[in-house]
């Protein structure tokens, strides 16, 4: 039987974390070990985790964002003996069969398998808008996306962290997620890195998890609230960096000017308040993206 290690990243959401852990403990497929990355929590999480001996806990002093959390969690898992790493957030509540359905699919695939992601619902049973996979008609320009759809599997170029089963061979091959991203686009980049390395990525329609956020929404810069706008510093910087990485500096320079110009223009047309604040964020992240140079770290075997 293939061995699975679950990784949960948490930050100051104690009551959700307990629900998330309870759901993992009820899985119908056995889990070898649960790793909890305590990403600088300052609430009851710290004291509670200190009294648990069922999990392997990784303490990080300061919050390193989701990217840092998944980096540390996957790194710790990858140094152990197992076959699959199952990652999720602290607000991910899995259905009992979520892992079993993912694991049942793996043997159906011929070829190198990189990851399988679950379907992510909001509280009302609708798909969560933050966690929709990216599907192209022909996966990696080679396999039709529907090649395995009789098994409720669709080939996907990228997937979110919110219930993602990673093949350890792929992790050891492509390295760890960029911890420097802090958050946003880290999952997109990491899963794309895996598929671009020649591994197949899948979205599994019958493995279901609840992403227990207050609202079901996908961040939208133009209509964002002033309290949330700081997040785009990371969002834009990471997005722009990925463009630079895949297309090279010359293309990137032209693209960035067009992108910043267009986004500013659209912003001024759409929103009437805090325009300067929003454009300031856009410009500073564009500037940062020119010099942002995180390096991929490989997994070290113990």
């Amino acid at each position, binding site marked *: 039987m293939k061995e699975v290690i679950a990784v949960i990243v948490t930050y100051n959401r104690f009551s959700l974390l307990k629900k998330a852990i309870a759901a993992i403990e009820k899985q119908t497929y056995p889990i070898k070990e649960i790793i909890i990355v305590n990403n600088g929590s300052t609430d009851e999480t710290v004291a509670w985790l200190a009294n648990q001996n069922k999990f392997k806990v990784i303490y990080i002093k300061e919050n390193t964002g989701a990217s840092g959390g998944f980096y540390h969690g996957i790194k710790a898992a990858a140094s152990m003996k197992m076959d699959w790493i199952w990652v999720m957030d602290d607000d991910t509540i899995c259905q009992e069969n979520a892992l079993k359905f993912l694991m049942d699919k793996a043997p159906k695939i011929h070829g190198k398998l990189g990851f399988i992601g679950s379907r992510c619902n909001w509280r009302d049973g609708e798909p969560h808008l933050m966690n929709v996979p990216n599907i*192209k008609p*022909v996966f990696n320009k080679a396999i*039709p*996306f*529907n090649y395995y759809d009789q098994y*409720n599997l669709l080939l996907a170029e990228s997937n979110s962290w919110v219930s993602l089963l990673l093949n350890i061979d792929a992790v050891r091959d492509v390295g760890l997620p960029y911890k420097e991203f802090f958050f946003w686009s880290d999952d997109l980049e990491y899963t794309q890195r895996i598929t671009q390395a020649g591994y197949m990525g899948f979205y599994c329609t019958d493995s279901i998890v609840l992403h227990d956020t207050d609202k079901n929404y996908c961040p939208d810069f133009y209509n964002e609230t002033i309290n949330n706008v700081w997040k785009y510093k990371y969002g834009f910087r990471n997005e722009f960096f990925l463009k630079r990485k895949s297309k090279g500096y010359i293309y990137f320079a032209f693209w960035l000017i067009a992108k910043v110009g267009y986004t500013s223009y659209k912003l001024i047309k759409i929103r009437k308040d805090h325009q300067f604040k929003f454009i300031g964020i856009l410009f500073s992240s564009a500037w940062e993206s020119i010099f942002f140079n995180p390096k991929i770290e490989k997994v070290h075997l113990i």
Partner: protein
Amino acid sequence: MYNITAVIVTNNRLDLLKEAVAAVKAQTYQPKQIIVVNNESTDGTAEWLDNQTGVHVIHQKNLGGSGGFFTGIKSAVSMNADWIWVMDDDTICQKDTLQILVQKLELLNKPVGFIGSKCIWKDGSPHLMNLPAIMPSFNKKISFNKYDDKRLLLIETNSFVSILINSKAVKKVGLPYKEFFIWGDDQEYTRRITKAGYLGFYCMDSIVLHKTGVNYFPDFYRDNVPNLWKHNYGFRNEFFMVKKNKGFIFFIFWLVIKVIYTSIKLLIIRKDDQLKFLRVLFNSAAKSIFFNPKISYV
């Protein structure tokens, strides 16, 4: 019972057509009518068709696939079909292809524009010419996977190789452009339907065989010379769509860049018949500037 009319378009492929018609007649859920549009076949198709019972035959000049689907869909709507089930003469349905599409429709209490089958090749793998287009957010509103528990995916476009189209949508958006002749007509038409606010679906369980000689997706850079003429239509239609969606000024700039980029890529990738291929590209670019088909309504 749904009032469904099947539409098959054919041109000089009598053996395949016989198989396709037999498969439609053997459906566990029967369409009310079968229309076959004969695009000026010269191989005895016309005589064979005229001796069939239970098939409504329309003979016309060869107007390409687009002209065939135009005529077929138009006739089906005028014969009061509620749904029109469209396919090519090399589409061999399984027995329950239509029944499954209808069953899925009944699960949805929504304004469905179309629902397409899974299209496979002889070896059982998906056919590369008939893959739907999926965006994470359908029409920028609904996640594509909202109905995947019913094994249905929301899609922006689908091919004409087994698709069930709602006649209400046809009445609202009009008929396919017959002037496209071939290629791009199905994409344009299904996108027109989804953009008008109807849901478009891909159904994983309704399966048809697309019986082509090879399973391939036409690739301009690597295509062979006998197939080259088709790209005249492919490019012209593709460029026309950009003109239609983005406006003339954007289109002209875009066209210049596109033609230059495609030429350079062609010169790098292929070493033979370069001039022939470039000529097709430039010709269709020029044609697309003046190509202005109008939508006909029923």
